[in-house]
């Protein structure tokens, strides 16, 4: 056997896989073989690095060279130039969007500089299907420490002291939640990991499960010990096949080495884990609906109390936490609550993973310390708005969250300041919107999502969101009338107060927050019948300017023959016939057609 001198880490997350990293890995293996380097270079498939925009990503160690958008054809070059001769393949390096400078090393890239990668520390750094690599980086030490040196009370106290709050959305203190389940008296208790990630654009839980599944298993085992549970479920959506596969591999490996199963660390503590695949209903992320689904019933919420800590799964005391919450737990036990508190704000400790999407240069996953400003996330990490357009708003917290305007960009990102600004942390989706986005349309989009995901059990959510959506639709189509805004506000407040579960109670948030910060856009739609962002097709009007040369191409492509004019003379559009399809604007070779 020879000394392995280089590791080639290829991202095998869902993002990079769909961009072709499977073939890249295959090519690396054959090219390395061809060059006779098989004994000295190792190819490792890792989890997600978060920089999905630039995938497939390849990192070559020991140098730590970061290659992006690597195609299967590029592999030969990397093997010959880098692995054989030791020279960096410049053209595949990441180039900073503003300075256009090439950045050879992972840690120097702007996207990563302001991040504090704790939960995601191993994602992209280890092979998620090798428990050995997780252990090599300190894995399962938190569990060992908890089980062999701490009482269950001490574990709960440590988590309370860390200030960890639920990362799934509401931000309930995790230690406190555990103490409720711990206090429940019953010989059978259950522990559930909520991996039913469903917010549009959010994929941090998937990335953790795919990139570092053992961290979640370890966090769950610690929680189970703390509350006195011997059986757990991971409720993960079936749309996450890779995450499910890696979880199954991880559970089998952990059982083999004795981190799960019977008599863990010889302490007599038993913990067995099952995976339950969810069918993808958004409402199943609500804890009582989720438990109904595990029990094989239709996924619908029920009124609380009784809370799950008293009567949960199959009527037994149950504790539910989200994936990212569990992934924080091993760190707290391994390094201590005091270390954990070195990061974040007084009431929101630690880090949060955000999924950056929308009109932003660096889409991907970023883990940042709590208390960082939205401006830093969007401009320093996200690289700013695409095509140099003007920033308009950021939608945070998914369908339950709200939109924040530019004036609130310097707001520190933590649970409480987001709530007071009319948004919420949610699971951490961040959708950036530029000047071309219509805020009424955004509210309609999110309400449309919650409306179609409403389970229909309670009237306020089932009927109320439907009526609100109808009003929003007619506003964007130019049929809004006086009183619509007031009616929306009235309904929103009533639905929030009366809906049965979190889905309905938060569904009006996108409407309320856009009304709060962008009321003028609603008014323009209703009273002036125009969309200030020119995004609502039904309110758009197309006109031909003097740049028209009279070529007649627009008249030919118009499907309703709304354009007329003599050859070589300026043409005109009949606004009554025009269906606002935009075909003429796309076809005009002289850019003489404008939308207004």
């Amino acid at each position, binding site marked *: 056997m020879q*000394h*392995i001198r280089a590791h080639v880490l290829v991202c095998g997350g869902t993002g990079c896989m769909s961009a072709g990293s499977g073939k890249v890995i295959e090519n690396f293996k054959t090219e390395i073989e061809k060059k006779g380097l098989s004994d000295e270079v190792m190819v490792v498939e890792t989890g997600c690095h978060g920089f999905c925009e630039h995938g497939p990503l390849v990192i070559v160690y020991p140098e730590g060279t970061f290659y992006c958008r690597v195609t299967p054809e590029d592999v030969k070059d990397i093997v010959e130039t880098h692995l054989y001769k030791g020279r960096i393949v410049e053209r595949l390096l990441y180039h900073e969007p503003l300075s256009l400078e090439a950045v050879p090393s992972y840690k120097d890239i702007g996207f990563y500089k302001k991040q504090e990668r704790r939960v995601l520390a191993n994602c992209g750094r280890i092979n998620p299907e090798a428990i050995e690599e997780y252990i090599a980086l300190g894995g399962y030490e938190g569990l060992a420490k908890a089980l062999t040196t701490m009482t269950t009370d001490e574990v709960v106290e440590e988590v309370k002291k860390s200030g960890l709050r639920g990362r799934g959305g509401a931000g309930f203190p995790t230690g406190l939640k555990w103490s409720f389940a711990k206090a429940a008296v019953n010989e059978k208790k259950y522990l559930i990991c909520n991996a039913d990630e469903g917010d549009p654009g959010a994929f941090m839980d998937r990335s953790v499960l795919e990139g570092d599944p053992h961290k979640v298993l370890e966090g769950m085992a610690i929680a189970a010990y703390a509350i006195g549970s011997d059986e757990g479920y991971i409720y993960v959506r079936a749309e996450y096949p890779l995450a499910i596969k890696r979880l199954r591999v991880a559970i089998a490996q952990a059982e083999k080495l004795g981190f799960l199963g019977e008599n863990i660390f010889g302490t007599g503590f038993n913990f067995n884990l099952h995976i339950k695949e969810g069918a993808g209903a958004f409402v199943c992320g609500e804890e009582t609906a989720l438990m109904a689904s595990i029990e094989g019933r239709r996924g619908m919420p029920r009124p609380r109390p009784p809370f799950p800590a008293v009567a949960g799964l199959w009527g037994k005391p149950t504790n539910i936490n989200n994936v990212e919450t569990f992934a924080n737990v091993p760190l707290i036990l391994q390094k201590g609550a005091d270390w954990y508190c070195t990061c974040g704000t007084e009431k929101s400790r630690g880090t949060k993973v955000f999924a950056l999407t929308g009109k932003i240069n660096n889409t991907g996953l970023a883990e940042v310390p709590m208390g960082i400003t939205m401006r830093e996330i969007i401009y320093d990490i996200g690289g700013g708005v695409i095509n140099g357009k003007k920033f308009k708003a950021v939608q945070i917290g998914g369908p339950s969250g709200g939109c924040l305007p530019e004036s609130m960009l310097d707001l520190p990102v933590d649970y409480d300041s987001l709530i007071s600004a009319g948004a919420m942390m949610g699971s951490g989706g961040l959708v950036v919107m530029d000047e071309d986005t219509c805020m009424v349309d955004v509210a309609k989009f999110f309400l449309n999502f919650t409306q179609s995901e409403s389970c229909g059990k309670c009237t306020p959510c089932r009927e109320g969101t439907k009526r609100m959506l109808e009003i929003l639709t007619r506003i964007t189509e130019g049929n809004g009338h006086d009183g619509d805004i007031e009616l929306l506000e009235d309904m929103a407040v009533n639905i929030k107060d009366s809906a049965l579960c979190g889905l309905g109670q938060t569904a009006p948030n996108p409407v309320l927050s856009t009304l709060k910060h962008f009321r003028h856009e609603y008014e323009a739609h209703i009273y002036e019948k125009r969309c200030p962002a020119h995004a609502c097709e039904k309110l758009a009007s197309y006109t031909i300017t003097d740049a028209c040369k009279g070529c007649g191409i627009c008249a030919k492509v118009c499907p309703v023959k709304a354009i007329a004019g003599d050859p070589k003379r300026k043409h005109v559009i009949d606004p009554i016939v025009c269906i606002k399809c935009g075909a003429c604007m796309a076809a005009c070779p002289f850019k003489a057609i404008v939308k207004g």
Partner: protein
Amino acid sequence: MKSLEDLKVLREKLQADIRVRENDGTKIIIGMGTCGIAAGAREVMTAVLDELAVRKLKNVQVQQTGCIGMCEKEVLLDVVRPGEPRITYGNVKPTDVKRIIADHVINGHIIEDLVIGKMDGGEI
């Protein structure tokens, strides 16, 4: 697995296998320019890798670099121990490798008769 100690022992053992991903430890850098390769850099490198494997020195990093302009002295091989100057050896033959690793890499004794240059600040 019965205790925290058992886990730590296992961790130490496993850590060595992913040591390449940490940028620390002693580095051996081999000149792999066209001149270096022509002078037998691949053979030197293979000898280095073999010797490291025999001695189970998993914390030693092997890197390559391009031509630095002293083509007549190829094969060039540099050793950088943490906190020590970068030492460049010239005209290295595969047969010299055992000596470089035993004396310099492990014990820190520079082999003066092969040295052609020293440079402070080992960071590359």
